[in-house]
């Protein structure tokens, strides 16, 4: 992958054309940063730390600002700060084997690094869920204890392979009951009451945001690919913390307009005629090394679909009552593609391979995310057998640059490209 680093190669370097509005991502980010300042200034406003798969909408409904340690950890990685923060946390006793997001956050909080480098401030409360992993609650509980703030965890039952409908309904009941517990917890600690008007407004906006993202993914099925994983990995930010507010919707509308314009002209993110291989990427990106995705372009490969970024936009149902809404929310928390069990993963991945005309799949076996990495070997085998496309399993880490080995990754990627090429000639 160091082909891209070599100045001698720059003359023939394939440049991806990012969308005109990619630059506009700064607006929702600035809005979010500004809002945090406002929420911290006004005494009646509240802030909370939260994590992936937590129903952020509930926080906006109660007018709680969602601060997001994982999101800030990715900022730290992109700003080349994560390694020193991780090492700081390891110096505090946290093992090398633990989640690099967690250690980045612990390091960031302890060193009081500034927000633009991935820093994060003390919240009024910590709200989390184990929907994605138990690391979330272990990490958030440790930090809530350290910061001495109230802590709430949503316990999400596991949707294992073969779970039947009746069991699923029981699981949903359990989550719905906890959502009521969550509302009681928030009301106790904020003194605020649920406003049905606010709920309807937030949910309508959230649905609009996710529908826009899903529509955007429909356009990604086009050949050549108009929008790559290199871009979605940055632009999905509004889905992380802004479902329920307008600013993300405006941003996605602009992206969508750009994509439509591009596909109408038959253009792709790669220069004309350069897109050779359409790749599906599963897992969290290497945030400290986003160039990896751009470097794939040097081989004619474009990331055309990622279950990870798609996970943040589940298909939401318009519901008429609170009960119905909470049942839908409960099911969606359990139904995130990033958390699919092996059977559902195989089923959906194979469907996506067809829909997005995928030539090869890269699975990031993430040392910081063991739950998502479990079953990848079987997943790879199933895809190779059923769909006949090459699969590359890359063992690495999302936020810890120490796990990234340039030479080894380059060798493996080049082997993967050769397999895709050979496969096309069959």
């Amino acid at each position, binding site marked *: 992958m160091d082909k891209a680093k070599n100045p001698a190669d720059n003359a023939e370097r394939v440049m991806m054309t990012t969308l005109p509005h990619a630059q506009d991502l700064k607006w929702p980010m600035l809005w979010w940063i500004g809002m945090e300042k406002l929420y911290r200034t006004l005494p009646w406003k509240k802030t909370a730390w939260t994590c992936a798969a937590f129903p952020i909408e509930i926080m906006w409904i109660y007018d709680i600002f969602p601060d997001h340690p994982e999101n800030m950890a990715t900022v730290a990685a992109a700003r080349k700060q994560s390694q020193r923060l991780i090492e700081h946390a390891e110096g*505090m*006793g*946290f*093992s090398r*084997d*633990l*989640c690099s997001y*967690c250690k980045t956050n612990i390091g960031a909080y302890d060193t009081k690094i500034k927000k633009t480098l991935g820093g994060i401030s003390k919240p009024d409360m910590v709200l989390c869920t*184990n929907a994605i*992993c*138990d*690391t979330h*609650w*272990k*990490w958030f*509980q*440790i930090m809530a*204890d*350290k910061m001495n703030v109230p802590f709430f*965890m949503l*316990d999400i*039952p*596991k949707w*294992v*392979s*073969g*779970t039947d409908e009746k*069991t699923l309904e*029981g*699981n949903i*009941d*359990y989550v719905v*009951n*906890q959502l009521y*517990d969550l509302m009681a917890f928030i009301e106790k600690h904020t003194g605020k009451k649920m406003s049905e008007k606010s709920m309807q407004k937030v949910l309508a906006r959230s649905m609009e945001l996710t529908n826009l993202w899903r529509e955007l993914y429909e356009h990604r099925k086009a050949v050549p690919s108009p929008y790559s994983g290199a871009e979605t990995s940055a632009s999905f930010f509004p889905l992380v913390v802004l479902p329920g507010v307008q600013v993300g919707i405006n941003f996605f509308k602009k992206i969508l307009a750009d994509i439509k314009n591009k596909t109408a002209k038959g253009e792709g993110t790669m220069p004309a005629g350069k897109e050779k291989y359409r790749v599906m990427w599963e897992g969290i990106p290497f945030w400290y090394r986003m160039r990896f995705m751009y470097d794939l372009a040097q081989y004619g490969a474009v990331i055309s679909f990622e279950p990870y970024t798609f996970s943040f936009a589940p298909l939401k149902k318009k519901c008429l009552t609170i009960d119905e809404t909470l049942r839908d929310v409960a099911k969606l928390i359990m139904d995130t593609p990033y958390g699919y*069990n*092996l*059977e559902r993963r195989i089923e959906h991945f194979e469907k996506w391979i067809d829909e997005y005309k995928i030539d090869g799949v890269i699975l990031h*076996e993430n*040392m910081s995310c*063991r*739950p998502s*990495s*479990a*079953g*990848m*070997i*079987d997943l790879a085998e199933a895809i190779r057998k059923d769909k006949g496309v090459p699969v590359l399993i890359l*063992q690495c880490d999302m936020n810890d640059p120490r796990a990234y080995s340039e030479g080894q990754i380059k060798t493996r990627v080049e082997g993967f490209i050769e397999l895709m090429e050979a496969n096309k000639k069959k």
Partner: protein
Amino acid sequence: MKKLAYFDTSHEMPLEIIMAAGFTPFKIMGDVHKSNDPADKYLSSFFCPAASSWLAEALAHSKEWAGIVFAQGCNNTNRHYDIWKVHVETPFLHWFGAPMLEGDSAKKYYRVELQRLINALENKFGVKITPEKIREAIGKSNQIKKKMKQLSGLRSQKDIPNRDYLAAVIKCLTEPVDEVSAWLDSEITRWNAKPAFPSGKKRLLLTGSDVTYPEWMDVLDDCGIRIVRDDLSVGERLFATQIPESSDPLDALIEYYMGIPKPATRPTLKKRLDYLHQVLKDTKIDGVLSQNIKFCEPYAYDSVPVNNALQAEGYKLIHLERMYTPDADQQLANRLMAFVEMMDGGNNG
């Protein structure tokens, strides 16, 4: 009586339901002396090596078992269920979703999951799991817990090698309850007849990842350490509390399993510390040994706040990260001996 195996990273599996179905509960603990092949083909190198060993055991022995029940525990191994479903040949594989929490919502869900387990066992094996049978199983379980507690208490009074205690716990988790009960009676007699606690040994509390093989216990003995208390799942968590016998048997199981001393896989940290504090209050110890098996995330997270809290209270504590192998543990002996020497140099607690 045929064994029904269970995958359980702590003590979440309601053993009494398996007993009431007419089976001997058998905790899958792997074999550290055997290679993890072919489990290593399905699980990457950075997964819990103990869990890989369990899969290797299941791949080799599943046909000897009536079936397998997975209890929700460590999140890093929960998804192994899907892998077992593909590769392990068994006529019965069931997921038991033990909730993480313990409020009213969790209690309701726990009851749903207990009933689902009962229905699954009844349908598969043509048995009837009646409240009477569950009550009978609870009575037998409580007998084992009572006897184990008695046996465990002798660790700080008599000359009991560390491996003898581990062997007793493992027997309770793998062999028919009636046989174990009779065996425990004879062990209590045997242990009572042992000489007094050896004067040269240090009394330690063991906390962290589970130990499932005796070689590690021998290393501790060789270093002058006797484990007199612990908060392990293959340990005191099994018998620290009794199952209530008076109420509805499912309510009793819910109350018991939600109330046992917390492992690192269950919230909250405070509750886990509460048990450790109680242990330290009840038993005079010289120090604390905190151990973490490589890639065991839940205990690695806990080890920092737990160890900091205990050290801040003045307890002498050593934290070791261990590989899952009996051989490499010898390399830690020097550190342990230095720790023992350090304990000789001052007071504690």
